[in-house]
């Protein structure tokens, strides 16, 4: 039996999963953290507390990662993996829908961040690095959200994503200036060169994780292509950031 066409089913799944993600309690917890960061900036100004905007939205990303992970693991929790595998729509289409649905929290982030950035730019002097660092935040969100899906596909345990979120929280701003910490997804950048190169780095991570998510249980041309392009972007931009 041939699988049904992905078109209309995919669109419906994207809408359904997007709504679930945007209303997920863990994503909303991240929104609260980001709102806290914005409130601190509004209370104390950009020069004193501009960094709290970045920190708030950056900390929102691990919560989104756990939310996408929990949503992807719904089948495992409800013991409906086999039932859904019996549907005419292939697994890759459902995973693709989840990966596309990541755009829902990302677009909400872009809207919120855009409003805060526009307000900050109208009242304070934001330099080039500030703008580039703020522009990297939606990419951090997509990269970690795709990682949440990939983790659920490869390691279907509700423990792994929260454990990784804890590691991101404690390791990113560490006092130890090890080179590898620069490559942590939540890390910021101090100069224009590093801030520019972090954009393709984060895009590469997103493609790599999306490819990894699609490659389970069956590798397809799309998954291999995504993973290869992502790996190339990550390697080149990481080398540029580190040197």
């Amino acid at each position: 039996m041939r699988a049904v066409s992905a078109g209309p089913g995919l669109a419906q799944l994207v809408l359904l999963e997007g709504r679930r993600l945007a209303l997920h309690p863990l994503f909303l917890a991240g929104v609260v953290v980001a709102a806290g960061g914005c409130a601190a900036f509004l209370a104390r100004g950009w020069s004193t507390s501009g960094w709290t905007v970045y920190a708030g939205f950056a900390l929102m990303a691990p919560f989104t990662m756990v939310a996408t992970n929990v949503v992807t693991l719904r089948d495992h929790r409800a013991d409906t993996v086999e039932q859904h595998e019996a549907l005419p729509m292939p697994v890759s289409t459902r995973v693709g829908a989840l990966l596309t649905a990541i755009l829902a929290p990302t677009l909400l982030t872009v809207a919120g961040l855009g409003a805060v950035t526009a307000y900050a730019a109208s009242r304070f002097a934001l330099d080039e690095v500030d703008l580039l660092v703020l522009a990297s935040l939606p990419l951090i969100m997509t990269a970690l959200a795709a990682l949440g899906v990939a983790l659920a596909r490869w390691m279907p345990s509700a423990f792994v994503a929260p454990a990784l979120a804890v590691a991101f929280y404690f390791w990113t701003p560490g006092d130890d200036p090890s080179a590898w910490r620069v490559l942590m997804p939540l890390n910021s950048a101090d100069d224009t060169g590093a801030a520019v190169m972090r954009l393709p780095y984060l895009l590469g991570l997103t493609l790599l994780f999306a490819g990894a998510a699609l490659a389970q249980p069956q590798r397809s041309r799309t998954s291999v292509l995504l993973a290869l392009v992502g790996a190339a972007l990550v390697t080149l931009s990481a080398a540029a950031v580190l040197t």
Partner: protein
Amino acid sequence: MTRWRYTWRATHVAPWLLGAAISLLLALVHSHGPVAAPLQIGAFLLGAGAGFVTDDPAAETLAPSPTTLRARQGLRVAGAALATALAAVVLASLARPSGIGEAGALVAMTAGILGLNLGVSGVAGRRRGWRHGGLVSGPAVLFVVIASSALPPQWRLLPTGDIPGGWPAICTRWALASLLGLLLLAYSLRDPARSAVNARWWRPTA
């Protein structure tokens, strides 16, 4: 002993074991670096792993059995608490803290995070069924700690860094967090069949 063996067999211990293994690895790798970060991550991993021990897919089947919910879950929680205490001591001895104050603060933090995880896990299990505790507890405790770190140091209820008052203040706050979590757990483990009306007014006649 038989009861312990059966409880162990039916308990979802894989997340705790994974958390303990990662914590041990971190403590060994970072044995020459700063002490706090690996032990803090270890505390979170052990606590989040312990949150899964209240998950019981057979809870509905076992609900009418003579063994009460408190007894069934109490054994699981006691096992997780003992194992976490042992792991915390091992991790602290590997990391070699600067003094008794820092060691006490890290152990109190582990106890606090464990208590909070168990409390949240118990509440989630009570409200949404005994399959959701572990899913909710880890992220919920992380959120509370992050929210706490946004407060001024003197108001931080769950400090992961310095606060006024030093080590004793840190130990006290985490001990209170642990107590709060355990109270929540105890409340969520009360007998589901025992309603307030039944307990006060209804007495079965022989």
